[in-house]
C-alpha cells in the first residue's frame, strides 16, 4: 500500500472515530459568559425560566430553520437575538419584491439574492457571535437525514405538505423536537411535535406529524393565491422561536416546565383568537413512530413523498372553448362592445384590487351556489360572446364548465392565463399582485 493510501485510510478511520464520540461538553457547560454576553443577554437572563444556566444552554445549542419566508424570518430574527449557538437555514429560493411585507430579514437591495445568503448577512449584522450555516437547496429525502442530524430543535417554516411530511418523518426518526407552523389569510397554526414534556429527552407519548395527519390533504391553498397578512404569519414564526427557546432552556430548570401545548390555532378575526387544542397522542398505527413503522432510517430514502402528497386536480380540464390574451386584445380592438361580455369571476377582494375597465363582475361562488339572477342568466344565454376571466385561468375554467353544463350551449370562452397573462403579455401597466 502506498504511503498516500495508508494516510487516507487512517484519515477515514479517525474521522469515523471522531464522529462516534460525544461532543466535548465540559468546556461549553462550564465556560463563564463573556462580559459582552452578560450585557447583551442580561434582560432575558433575569427571567427565572431562562436564567444564566438557560443562556449557556442556548449558546451551546443548534436550531435548524427550514424555510426562510414569512415564518422563518421572524423566527430567525429572535433565535439569533436570543443567542442560539448555531443556526442552520434551508431555502432554495431568491428574494422577491412580494416577500418584503412579511419576510422581515430582507430589504429592497436583497431582491434577487438567495434567501439564505441575504438572511445570514442581515443576521450577522445583528449578532455575529452565532455560527450560521446555509443550505441553499430544497430539502429532499436524499439530503434530509444528513442536514437535520445533529440539530437540537427543528422549525418547519415551509409551505407545502410534502416538505412537512418529510420533516415530520426525519425529525421523528432522529428523535429531534419539531415545531411546525403554517399560516394563511388571517389564520395560523402551531404544533409542537415529538415532545410531550419540555424537559424530556424523548418523545414519550407525543405524536409525530404523521400521527396527527396520517393522510395528506386532498386540497391545499397557497399564500400566493389565498393571501396572507404579515403580522399573522409573523405571530406564528415568533411562537416557533419561543417554543424552541423553551425546549432548549427547560433542561436548566425542569421544575418550571410542564407539558408542551400540542396544537395552537390562531384566528386573528375571532373573538377568541388563541385556542389550544388537545391533539391525539402517538398512534400505534403510525407509519413513522407506530408499533410497526415502515418509514425508518434505513427505508427513508426510498419513500416517495411526491407521490404520497399528490394533490388531486380539482379543476375540471376543458380543452376547447378557450381564448388567449392576445386574441382577447384583438376582440377589444376589432369587435363592437355590444358583441361580447367580459366576465370577471374573481372574488370581490381581488376585483377591488384591479380589473379590466370593460369587465362585468360575477364571482365564481355566485355560479357554484346557484345564485345567479334571472337577468344574469339571460345575459349569459343571449347571442353575445361570453369571455370569462380570472387571475390565472383556473376559476374561469370552472365557471365556463358550470355555464356550459347548466345553461346549455352558449358561446362561452375561458381566457387562458387570466389577468396575470394579460399584464405580462399585453399591458405591463396592468398590476400583478
Amino acid at each position, binding site marked *: 500500500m502506498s504511503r498516500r493510501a495508508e494516510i487516507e485510510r487512517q484519515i477515514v478511520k479517525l474521522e469515523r472515530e471522531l464522529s462516534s464520540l460525544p461532543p466535548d461538553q465540559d468546556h461549553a457547560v462550564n465556560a463563564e459568559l463573556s462580559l459582552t454576553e452578560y450585557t447583551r443577554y442580561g434582560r432575558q437572563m433575569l427571567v427565572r425560566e431562562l436564567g444564566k444556566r438557560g443562556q449557556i444552554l442556548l449558546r451551546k445549542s443548534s436550531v435548524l430553520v427550514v*424555510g426562510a*419566508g*414569512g*415564518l*422563518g424570518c421572524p423566527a430567525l430574527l429572535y433565535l439569533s437575538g436570543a443567542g442560539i449557538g448555531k443556526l442552520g437555514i434551508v431555502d432554495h429560493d431568491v428574494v422577491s419584491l412580494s416577500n418584503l411585507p412579511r419576510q422581515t430579514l430582507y430589504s429592497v437591495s436583497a431582491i434577487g439574492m438567495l434567501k439564505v445568503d441575504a438572511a445570514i448577512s442581515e443576521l450577522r449584522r445583528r449578532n455575529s457571535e452565532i455560527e450560521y450555516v446555509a443550505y441553499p437547496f430544497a430539502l429532499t429525502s436524499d439530503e434530509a437525514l444528513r442536514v437535520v442530524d445533529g440539530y437540537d430543535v427543528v422549525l*418547519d*417554516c*415551509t*409551505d*407545502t*405538505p410534502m416538505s*412537512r411530511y418529510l420533516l415530520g418523518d426525519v425529525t421523528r426518526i432522529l428523535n429531534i423536537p419539531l415545531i411546525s*407552523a*403554517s*399560516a*394563511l*389569510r388571517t*389564520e*395560523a*397554526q402551531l404544533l409542537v411535535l415529538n415532545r410531550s414534556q419540555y424537559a424530556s429527552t424523548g418523545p414519550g407519548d407525543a405524536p409525530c406529524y404523521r400521527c*396527527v*395527519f396520517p*393522510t*395528506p*390533504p*386532498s*386540497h*391545499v*391553498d*397557497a*399564500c400566493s393565491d*389565498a393571501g*396572507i397578512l404579515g403580522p399573522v*404569519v409573523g405571530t406564528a414564526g415568533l411562537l416557533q422561536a419561543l417554543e424552541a427557546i423553551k425546549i432548549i432552556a427547560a433542561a436548566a430548570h425542569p421544575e418550571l416546565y410542564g407539558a408542551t401545548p400540542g*396544537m395552537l*390555532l390562531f*384566528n386573528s*378575526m*375571532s373573538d377568541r383568537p388563541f*385556542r*389550544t*387544542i*388537545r*391533539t*391525539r397522542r402517538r398512534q400505534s398505527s403510525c407509519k413513522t413512530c407506530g408499533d410497526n413503522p415502515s418509514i425508518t432510517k434505513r427505508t427513508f430514502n426510498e419513500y416517495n413523498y411526491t407521490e404520497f402528497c399528490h394533490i388531486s386536480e*380539482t379543476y375540471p380540464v376543458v380543452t376547447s372553448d378557450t381564448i388567449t390574451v392576445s386574441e382577447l386584445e384583438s376582440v377589444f380592438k376589432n369587435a363592437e362592445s355590444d358583441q361580447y361580455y367580459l366576465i370577471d369571476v374573481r372574488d370581490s377582494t381581488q376585483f377591488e384590487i384591479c380589473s379590466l375597465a370593460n369587465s362585468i363582475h360575477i364571482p365564481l*361562488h355566485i355560479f*357554484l*351556489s*346557484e345564485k345567479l339572477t334571472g337577468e344574469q342568466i339571460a345575459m349569459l344565454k343571449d347571442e353575445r360572446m361570453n369571455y370569462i376571466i380570472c387571475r390565472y385561468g383556473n376559476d374561469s375554467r370552472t365557471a365556463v364548465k358550470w355555464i356550459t353544463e347548466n345553461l346549455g350551449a352558449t358561446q362561452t370562452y375561458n381566457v387562458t392565463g387570466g389577468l396575470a397573462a394579460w399584464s405580462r403579455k399585453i399591458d405591463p401597466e396592468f398590476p400583478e399582485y
Partner: protein
Amino acid sequence: MTVPLTVEFSGGLEILFGGERTLNITLRPSDKQASSTIADLVKYLCDERMTDKRKELFVIEEYHVRPGILVLINDADWELEGEEEYVIQSGDQILFASTLHGG
C-alpha cells in the same frame, strides 16, 4: 331529542358555508335514532347548510370529512372522542378547521 350546538369553520372552510364562521344549529335525530353523531352532523351540514356546490372541498366518499380537515370537539381532536361515532351533547362546540400549509 333535539340538541343545540355550535359549529365553527376555519382555515377557509367558511367560504363553503356562505362565509359564516359560526353556525348555531339545532340537530334533530332521524326517525330510527335516539341521538345524533358527528356523522349525522356532517351529512346535515352538506345537505342543508353548504352554499357552495364543491362538496369535495369538505367531504369525500359520500359524507366523510376529507383529509386535511381537523375536527375538534370542544377543543379536542375528534380522535380522542370517537371520531364520526361521537354522540353530540347539548351545547357542544364542533370546529372544522382546514389545516394550513402556507409559510
